[in-house]
């Protein structure tokens, strides 16, 4: 009568002799192998894309002195630029695996120390803006779905489209004008570390987080509204009503979990967009994060820094989406083994 149980889980039997076919068939290992392959491809592409760009870091560093071929050659040798592309890649990736991403051509600071001072700021911006976006989008999406086609839905929709079609730096400028210039509540720009006090610190990042959160908020509200409205139209919601379950319990217990997968997917994918947006927003608000660091490194042709930062950003994006894959199975046990953007059923 029932032959569907095998779809649910396929646990690895650890006592069985390690046979490659079996290992490859189990989803956990398959995922790990795929993850490693993706990380490898990222490192290659990051490296290659910067090698193919025009401009020579040695010339940038030397400035006028670059006209002397001997000095230029000496500098190129010092930077390792005279070696073959494969040798340079292996040198770089070998160092990266042991935590050494090289040193800036320009400032001589190690790339890993630049990242470790800048990453927390960007990470905080991303996390804060995701929290703000989700906290606002979930109720807005649910309220709009419940009132689909009525006044509240149209009002929220209008607001959301307004936010969605405004670039984040414009929103940033508007926020600065309101809260820093007009009201004088928050600093217009500049970063305060935690050591300056929690209030001062949060005050220095909150406007940037809000302007980063605007676009994801709008996206999440749209996605959740559509999924949630679809769930509300399904039979099991009628069944729950016919059981006499209270409307609040239906809204919060029955309808949320089946509607949350789309939101989860876009939340994971949005991390990449947010990191990209920090490039603009960190510069606007004068925050010393990875985005601002990347911009100055690109301007200086400081490839080794760009490479290192890009690698870290890309890896965190991949790791976050691997986490999202894992969360699918937690939210909906039917989906154990599904992949972001590729869910079954």
């Amino acid at each position, binding site marked *: 009568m*029932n032959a*569907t149980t095998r779809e*649910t889980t396929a646990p690895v039997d650890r006592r069985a002799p390690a046979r490659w076919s079996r290992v490859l068939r189990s989803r956990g290992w398959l995922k790990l192998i795929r993850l490693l392959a993706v990380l490898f491809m990222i490192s290659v592409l990051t490296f290659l894309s910067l090698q193919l760009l025009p401009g020579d870091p040695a010339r940038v560093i030397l400035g006028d002195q670059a006209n002397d071929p001997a000095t230029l050659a000496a500098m190129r040798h010092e930077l390792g630029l005279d070696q073959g592309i494969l040798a340079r890649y292996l040198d770089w990736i070998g160092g990266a695996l042991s935590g050494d991403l090289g040193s800036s051509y320009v400032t001589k600071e190690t790339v890993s120390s630049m990242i470790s001072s800048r990453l927390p700021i960007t990470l905080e911006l991303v996390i804060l803006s995701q929290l703000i976006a989700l906290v606002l989008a979930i109720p807005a999406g649910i309220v709009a779905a419940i009132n689909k086609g009525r006044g509240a839905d149209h009002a929220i929709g209008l607001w959301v489209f307004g936010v969605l079609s405004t670039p984040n730096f414009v929103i940033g400028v508007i926020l600065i004008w309101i809260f820093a210039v007009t009201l004088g509540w928050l600093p217009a720009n500049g970063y305060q570390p935690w050591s300056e006090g929690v209030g001062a610190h949060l005050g220095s990042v909150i406007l940037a987080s809000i302007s980063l959160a605007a676009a994801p908020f709008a996206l999440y509200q749209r996605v959740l509204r559509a999924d949630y409205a679809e769930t509300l139209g399904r039979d*099991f919601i009628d*069944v729950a009503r016919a059981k006499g379950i209270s409307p609040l319990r239906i809204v919060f217990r029955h309808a949320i979990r*089946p509607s949350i997968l789309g939101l989860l997917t876009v939340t994971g994918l949005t991390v990449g967009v947010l990191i990209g947006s920090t490039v603009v927003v960190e510069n606007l608000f004068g925050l010393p994060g990875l985005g601002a660091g990347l911009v100055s490194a690109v301007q200086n042709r400081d490839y080794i820094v760009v490479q290192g930062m890009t690698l870290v950003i890309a890896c965190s994006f991949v790791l976050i989406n691997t986490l999202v894959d894992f969360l699918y199975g937690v939210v909906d046990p039917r989906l154990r083994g599904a992949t972001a953007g590729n869910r079954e059923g």
Partner: protein
Amino acid sequence: MPETPLLQIEDLVVEFPTRGGLVRAVDGVSLTLGRGERLGIVGESGSGKSVLGRTVMGLNDRARARISGRVLFEGKDVLGASAQERRELWGRQISMIFQDPLSALHPITPIGAQIAEAVRRLPDVDKAQAAERAVELLDMVGIPDARRRARQRAHEFSGGMRQRALIAMAIACKPKLIIADEPTTALDVTVQAKILDLLDELCTELSIGSVLITHDMGVVAQHTDRVAVMYGGQVVETAPVAGLFAAPTMRYTRALLAAIPQMAPGRRSLPVPIGGTPPNPLERGAGCRFAPRCTFAEDDCHQAIPELLALADATDHRYRCWHPAAVPAETEAGAR
């Protein structure tokens, strides 16, 4: 004073405003159901039978449907009741079984927890008792290894077992009335009979009245006491089940019966399909709703809707037809 019937539907009209105009899905339906009685509602898709079921339950979105007439459950008005009062009825007094058991079950919550949720509508039942009762209910509806099954989810159940689980959910609070909307349409024929037998058995045991909504005359014959045939939103014939099959009077009922293959010895006949398509509720004529497809329709059939009249020798057998068929049914079905 006579006993109040379990369910009384009086002149019920349900309309939905659409872009094309006002769709009258249920048009002046009156029906009565006694305690523990089994009522069958038969009709093609679009006949209004499912809307009728949902309206009786009070599930229709009030903002979208325009409803007039009365639905009385144990003498109390369901349609006029507040949301809170209706919620008291749902699950406790009236419950419903839906057509597609897969989409009717929550996809993520384990089956046992879904049934326990229904059990907890009863006063003074704690979580552990409800979970225990859910396992008992699953066992009662014939699911083997109920304790393990209670922890599984809808996609791990077969179609028949899903419908059994929904039946368990429907009887969790021993309601007085179950509305079953095409409960076996999505199931294999072999499973169908078992599910309907189970439903009959449980309704008899717990003296639950039932409304069985179906398009299948065969199902009605075996699993109901009284039948209402619906066409174009109206009841066109209603009678005790034996009377209906002995003397189908309205032409549409006859046509429905002729559409069932007869395989009894010496009485073989191929099914006779009903020509045409069910009427578009936006383009109804002034006459009998079935007239455009009726092979016996005459001019007067297109002029006015016939009244629901009682048969001379059986007052509980009423029909709506200008040119009713004469008994017996066999001769006509055979002649065609």
